[in-house]
């Protein structure tokens, strides 16, 4: 059977100011997640 993975052409523009591709949106979300985890780790250390 043909692979069901989407072809890059299926992708659409995110239409979010400052982001021209979905990869950019995903990287932003990932960076925000890393920032949140780091802040939580600092929070734990400071208040333990």
């Amino acid at each position, binding site marked *: 059977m043909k692979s069901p993975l989407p072809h890059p052409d299926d992708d659409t*523009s995110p239409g979010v100011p400052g982001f021209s591709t979905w990869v950019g949106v995903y990287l932003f979300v990932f960076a925000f997640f890393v920032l949140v985890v780091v802040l939580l780790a600092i929070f734990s250390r400071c*208040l333990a």
Partner: protein
Amino acid sequence: MNSLDWIILLVTMVGIAIYGAWHTRHTDHLDTYMKASKTTKWGTIGISVMATQASAITFLSIPGQGFESGVGFVQNYFGLPLALIIVCAVFLPIYRKLGVYTAYEFLGKRFDAKTRLLGAGLFLLQRGLAAGVTIYAPAIILATVLDWRLDLTIIGTGLLVIVYTVTGGSEAVNLTQKWQMGIIFLGMITAFLILLARLPQGLGLGGALHVAGAMGKLQAVDFSTDPARRYTLWTGLLGGLFLSLSYFGTDQSQVQRYIGGAALREGRLGLMFNALFKIPMQFFILLLGALLFVFYQFQPAPVFYNRVEWQQHAAGSKGATFRAIDERNDALNQAKREKIEAWLAARNSGDLAEPAARAAMLEAAAASEKLREEARAALVKADPRAQTKDSDYVFIGFILEQIPHGVIGLLIAVMIAAALGSKAGELNALGTTTTIDLWRQFRPLAAHDEARNVRAAKWFTAFWGIIAIGFALFAGFSENLIEAINIIGSIFYGVVLGIFLVAFFLKQVGGTAVFWAAVISQSVIFALYLLRHAFPALDISYLWYNLIGCAACVILGLVLQVALDGASQSKGRPA
């Protein structure tokens, strides 16, 4: 609750239910009933995804979790943003391209009918069980608040949600969830502000955080590699990733929320909205629980927070034991409060005696905790069937005792709104999956009769609502409720995710191999769970079931496919 609370509660709850049912009363098209309106925007999808996941348990049990074990539970959600990125990039475009109603339809197209039935069957089993827990949670609140019978409360709340979910399907679910989430955000922020205002004068948020931290309630990130520890950075990242990937990518109650919508973009942005805000939101609710813990260090805290159960025994034939525990609790609370105040004074003045004051405070806290264990043992001795887990009652107890009238009604509405929102999403998905993946399979001629399909979906939605009510009535829940629902999910999710990962990424594996790999892997997970007490080595964090189930299914699928290919080649070989 007084009449003002009742007015706010009833107007909010019944109003939203009637609004949802009325606006969607003419939902006769299969697409709208199962995928909601084609014009749905990303904000509605994002809120709907969040509301389906955030059940009453979220707002009832998570503050209790924060109170009991601290904010470390937030690590359970660390895999979620990563999982949502994968769902957006891989799962969602395929579902939309194929135009499926359920995630399991995709399995039928990729593999065969038996694998589709297995995927749908595992979903129906685990979500049907979990639906019982989500109906049980708010019923506890109402039973406590109104002193009603728990069974009648379960039936009443269950029937309310069945009415508008059956009437308007996915469209009604989306519509009502938007309003319900509005009530939830408003209520939780109000509760947080009131809690801050109720803290002792001079303590403030900073002081309260220091007390909570010193008492071990603020360890949000745990780097331990001990596999027996439930919540660590690693269980969250790995186990949580697989749990979230399975939940958002393959659980129909979530898939149904985002496969509709105006365009692929709307579903993706709705999911990214959740990827950004879920961890901060859960942390906020856990922090509320940790601050409740601090609040009760300065108040006459009960030894057991399910006050109704405790008072029943205190008034019974063995009441002397319970009253004696209460008296000791009062004395220990007083001593502990003095020790905390002494530590705060030493800390604020930079006194060298601060470490000794901290040790004395922790010793007093340990003595209080020991008495709580003694209280639980006394309950079990008096009644072996007694519910000894009281953390779910901490927040509701605070609401009823400390919050002004009017706001009590609003916060009870928060719980019920959350319950109805998530329950509606679940019932909608259970009804849709039963119709599309089971009923249609056995009645293929009915597939073209749209009105008949909608009627069948309505009947199946009602059927699952009644099953959930039955499960909630007869099951006993020994774990904290939020954990119970995650444990049920983790037992099934890993294997289901394994089937989907094989479908997406391993095109050489066929239906028969993945089907038997899934059956064997699910049996292994059941064995791990059931034998965990008999063999301590098997007693691992339930989050690992997601990873083990998924990995076993993928690896076994590959191995079985190689074996099947080998067998067919040897059959075809000339003798």
